[in-house]
C-alpha cells in the first residue's frame, strides 16, 4: 500500500474525475437507467450529522427522527404504487428482486404449494429477473414478445399451470412500451395460482399516473436511484424497496418501522411470517433520505408532472430521429424507446456500436446498446424529464450527423471515438488474462 501526501491524492482523484462522463457534465440518455438530474438538496440533507452520526444500534428513543422519516417514506411509496406495505431494506433493484422471490417462495411453502417452481419472464426482461429467480431454485421460462413489442399473451397463457410460481414483468417494458394487456395477464396468472411481480426499473414513466397495485401486481421493487433521483455513484449505492399487497405483506423482511399508539416510532422485529432480514441493519438509510427529500419537494403533482415530462422528452427525441434510424414499434413510447441500426448496418456496415462511440466524441453518453435482444442493432434511449429541449435537439442533430457520416465515410466510423480520454479498448486481451486471475489489480512492475 502506498504512502501519499494529500496533494498527490488530490491531483490523482481530480484527474480521474476528469476522465468520466456524468449527468452533471454530459447528457446521459442511458436506457432503463433513468439518469435524471440529482438535486443537490438531496446531498445536503443526507449530510446532516443527525443522520450520518446515528449508529444503527442507537436505541429507538434516540432515533425518532430517522424512524419517522422511514415511516413516512414507507407510507408515501405504498400510496404512490398501490401497495399495502413496503420494506425499505433492499440495497438495490436486484436485491429487491431476490427479496421478493424469497417472499414468494415462503408464501407458497406456507400455503402448501411448495412444488410451484416456474418463473415466467418475458424475453425483454432485465437479466437480473431470471438471475434472481434462479437463486431461489425457480426454473425460468422465457415468454416471447409480439411484433407490437408486447408480451405475447397467448404464449404466456399456454405456460400457465399448477407449476407456475411467479410472473415477473416490467411495465412499461424495456422497449419503452406499455403492456396494454396487463390486466388480462395478471388475471390469468392469478387464476393459475401464480403471483405477479413488478420490476420497477421503468417506474419513472408511471409515477402518479397509474399504480402497479391497481394493475394487479402482488409484489414489486423500485429503484430509488432511478425514479427518485438518488445519484447512481458510478454503480451504486442504490436502494431497492420492495412493496407487497395485503396477501404478501406479512412475508416482508424484518425489522419494519411501526408507529406506536403514543405516536412514537419503533423497529418491529415481531413479524412471525417474515422471511427475515436481507441485509445487516435497516436500509441504505442515507439513500432513503435523498429519495425522501425528492418526494417532499415534489408532492404528488410534481411527481406526476415529472413522469409526464419524461414521456414527452422520449417521444420528442423519437420523433426527431425516426427518419434516420428504424423505430420498430409504431405506438408512442413511454419514458424511453428503442431504435435499430440494422438497416444502416446493411447499407453501410456501420453498427449501433459505432454510433454509440460517435456520440461519446460529441460529449454525449451512449444509449444502452444491443439490448433487449429482440431488436437487432438496438439502441435504447431514455432522455429523462430534466433535460432541456436544446440538449434533446443537439442529441438528435448529432445522430443525424453520424448517420450521414456512416453513409459518406463508413470506414471512419470504426475509428470513433477519437477525443475521449482513451479510445476503443482491447477487451479480448483483458478477458483472457482475467480468466487466469491476472490484470485485475495493480502489481509492482
Amino acid at each position, binding site marked *: *500500500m*502506498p*504512502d501519499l501526501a494529500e496533494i498527490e*491524492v488530490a491531483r490523482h*482523484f481530480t484527474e480521474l*474525475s*476528469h476522465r*468520466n462522463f*456524468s*449527468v452533471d*457534465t454530459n447528457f*446521459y440518455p442511458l436506457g432503463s*437507467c433513468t*439518469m435524471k438530474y440529482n438535486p443537490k*438538496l438531496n446531498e*445536503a440533507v443526507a449530510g*446532516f450529522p*443527525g*443522520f450520518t452520526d446515528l*449508529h*444503527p*444500534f*442507537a436505541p429507538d428513543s*434516540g432515533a425518532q*427522527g430517522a424512524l419517522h422519516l422511514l415511516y413516512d417514506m414507507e407510507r408515501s411509496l405504498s400510496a404512490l404504487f398501490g401497495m399495502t406495505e413496503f420494506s425499505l431494506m433492499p440495497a438495490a433493484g436486484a436485491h429487491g428482486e431476490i427479496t421478493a422471490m424469497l417472499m414468494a*417462495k415462503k408464501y407458497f411453502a406456507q400455503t402448501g404449494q411448495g412444488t410451484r417452481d416456474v418463473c415466467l419472464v418475458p424475453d425483454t426482461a432485465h*437479466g437480473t429477473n431470471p438471475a434472481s429467480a434462479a*437463486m431461489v431454485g425457480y426454473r425460468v421460462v422465457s415468454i416471447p414478445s409480439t411484433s407490437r413489442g408486447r408480451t405475447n399473451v397467448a404464449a404466456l397463457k399456454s405456460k400457465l399451470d399448477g407449476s407456475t410460481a411467479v410472473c415477473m414483468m416490467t411495465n412499461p417494458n424495456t422497449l419503452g412500451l406499455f403492456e396494454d394487456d396487463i390486466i388480462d395477464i395478471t388475471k390469468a396468472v392469478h387464476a393459475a395460482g401464480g403471483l405477479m411481480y413488478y420490476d420497477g426499473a421503468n417506474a419513472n414513466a408511471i409515477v402518479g399516473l397509474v399504480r402497479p397495485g391497481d394493475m394487479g401486481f402482488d409484489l414489486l421493487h423500485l*429503484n430509488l436511484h432511478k425514479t427518485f433521483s438518488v*445519484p447512481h*455513484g*458510478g*454503480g*451504486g449505492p*442504490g436502494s431497492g424497496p420492495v412493496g407487497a399487497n395485503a396477501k404478501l405483506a406479512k412475508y416482508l423482511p424484518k425489522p419494519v418501522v411501526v408507529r406506536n399508539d403514543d405516536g412514537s416510532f419503533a423497529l418491529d422485529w415481531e413479524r412471525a411470517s417474515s*422471511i*427475515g432480514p*436481507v441485509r445487516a*441493519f435497516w436500509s441504505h438509510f442515507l439513500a432513503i433520505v435523498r429519495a425522501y427529500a425528492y418526494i417532499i419537494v*415534489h*408532492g*404528488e403533482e410534481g411527481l*406526476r408532472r415529472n*413522469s*409526464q*415530462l419524461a414521456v*414527452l422528452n422520449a417521444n420528442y427525441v423519437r420523433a*426527431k430521429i425516426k427518419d434516420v434510424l428504424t423505430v420498430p414499434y409504431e405506438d408512442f413510447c413511454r419514458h424511453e424507446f428503442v431504435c435499430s441500426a440494422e438497416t444502416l448496418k446493411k447499407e453501410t456496415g456501420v453498427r449501433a456500436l459505432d454510433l454509440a462511440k460517435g456520440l461519446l466524441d460529441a460529449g454525449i453518453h451512449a444509449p444502452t446498446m444491443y439490448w433487449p435482444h429482440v431488436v437487432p442493432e438496438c439502441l435504447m434511449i431514455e432522455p429523462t424529464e430534466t433535460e432541456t429541449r436544446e440538449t434533446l435537439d443537439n442529441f438528435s442533430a448529432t445522430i443525424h450527423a453520424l448517420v450521414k457520416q456512416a453513409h459518406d465515410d463508413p470506414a471512419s466510423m470504426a475509428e470513433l471515438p477519437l477525443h475521449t*480520454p*482513451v*479510445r*476503443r*479498448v*482491447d477487451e479480448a486481451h*483483458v478477458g483472457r488474462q*482475467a480468466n*487466469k*486471475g491476472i*490484470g*485485475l489489480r495493480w502489481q509492482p512492475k
Partner: protein
Amino acid sequence: MYTPHTDDEIRAMLAEIGAPSLEALSSPPLGLEIKESLGLPPALPEAEAYAHLKALAGKNDGARKVSFLGAGAYRHYQPPAVPWFAMRSEFLTAYTPYQAEASQGSLQAIFEWQTYVCLLTGMDVSNASLYDGATALVEGVIMAMHTNGRKRVVVSQAVHPMYRAVLATYATGMGLEVIDLPYNAAGVTDLEGGADHARGASCVVVQSPNFFGCIEDVDAGSKLAHDNDALSVCVTAEALSLAVLKTPRESGADIALGEAQSFGLPVGYGGPYVGFIASTKEHVRRLPGRLVGETTDVAGRRAFVLTLQGREQHIRRELATSNICTNQALCALIATVYLATVGATGLRAIATTNLRRARELSDALTSITGFSRAFATPFFNEFCLRTPVPAEQLARALERRGMLAGLPLSRFYPELTHHLLICATELTTPDDIRHLNSALAEETSRAVAAV
C-alpha cells in the same frame, strides 16, 4: 424547479410529436388512471424541505451521545479530503461504467479498490464491491457451493448475528443447510467440536475479530475446512483490523469477505456501507458482480474496462454467478480515497491507536468492582464486558445520562445477559472513558442498592 421546459416549449414539442396533450401522451391506456389524491403531503419549497429534514435529523439525539457502540458499524474519523474528492459530481452522477471510453475515472477507481482489497486480505482477486458484509457472506457461501456442489455450510456462532440471520433468510430459499459451530468459554469458535459437522460441508465460515471482538484462530478454521475438502471463508466486519492482523490468506482462507464501512463511511443509521469479497485466483470465474481489468486502447494507452462479464446476469441471465447488478461503487470509491489519504503508515497508526484505546477502556472498566472481561482472548477494538447487573439495565441507565454504553449481547444471545459489547476507536477520548467509568460505577451501585 428541476425540469426546464416552458409551457410554450411543451406545446411546440407536442406539435412535433403529433400528440394532442401531455396527458393524452402519457396516460396509460387502461382506464386505471389515478383520479383521486393519494394523500401525500403537498409539495414543500426547497427551503422548507431543508428545514423539515433538519428538524428530523435534530430529533436523533442518539447521534449526539457519547458512543461506545460498534458491533458491525464503527465510528471512525473521516479525513475531509475523502468526501471532498470522492463526492465530485463526475463520480457521484455517473452510471455503472459500461462505456469504457467515457468512464475511465470510475473504472480506474474500482481497479484501485480491487487492489486495496487484495493487499489487505492477501488475496489474488477481488470484485467491484457488494452491498454489505452480510450479503458478502451470502455471496461467499454461494461461491463455495458453486465450487464443490455441496449444500451444507458450517458457520461459527460468533459470526455477526445479523450476517447469520441474512444467511438464514437466503438459505431457506436456496435449500442450503446451515450448521452452527458454538463458541466456547474463551469467546471463540469451538473448532474441535466442529469436526463432525465439517464432513461433507461446502465451507467453514469464521469471523475474526469475531462478534465478541475476540481474535479467532483462522488458521485452525482453515485447517478444519481443508481437512474436509471444504473451502475456508474468513469474515471481517471491522476492516481496520486487517491493517494489524495476519491476512486471511496467510491464515489459509480461500475466500475473504466482509464490511469496509470503517474506511471513511459514516455509521449513517446502517447504510449505505460497502461489502467486499476476495479470493485466490482459481475462483476468479465464480466471483459475483463487476470486475475491472487493465488493458490498452487502440493507441496503446493504459486503459480499464469491465471484464469477465460472461459471469454476470446481463449476459448469463439465469446461469449467472449472482444476480447483483448495481453495487456500492461510490462507497468503494470513498474507501479507496480514504486508504489513499491515510496511506499504509497512517492506517497502521490508526489501527494501533484503536488497539491502545480499547485496552485503556478495558483497563478502566475492569477496575470497577464486579466488572471483568467476559472472555480472556485477545481483542482488537472491541471486547465483551461482563457486568454485575443485567447489561440491558445498565445500557438504559447510561442512555439517560447521554451515553451509548455498548450493545447488550442478550439482544442476539439470550444466554449472555450480563454482557456488554463495547468498542473504542481513535475517536474515543480519555474524557469519554472517564465518564463511562464513573457512570457505570454509579449506576451499578444504584442498581445493587435497589436490590
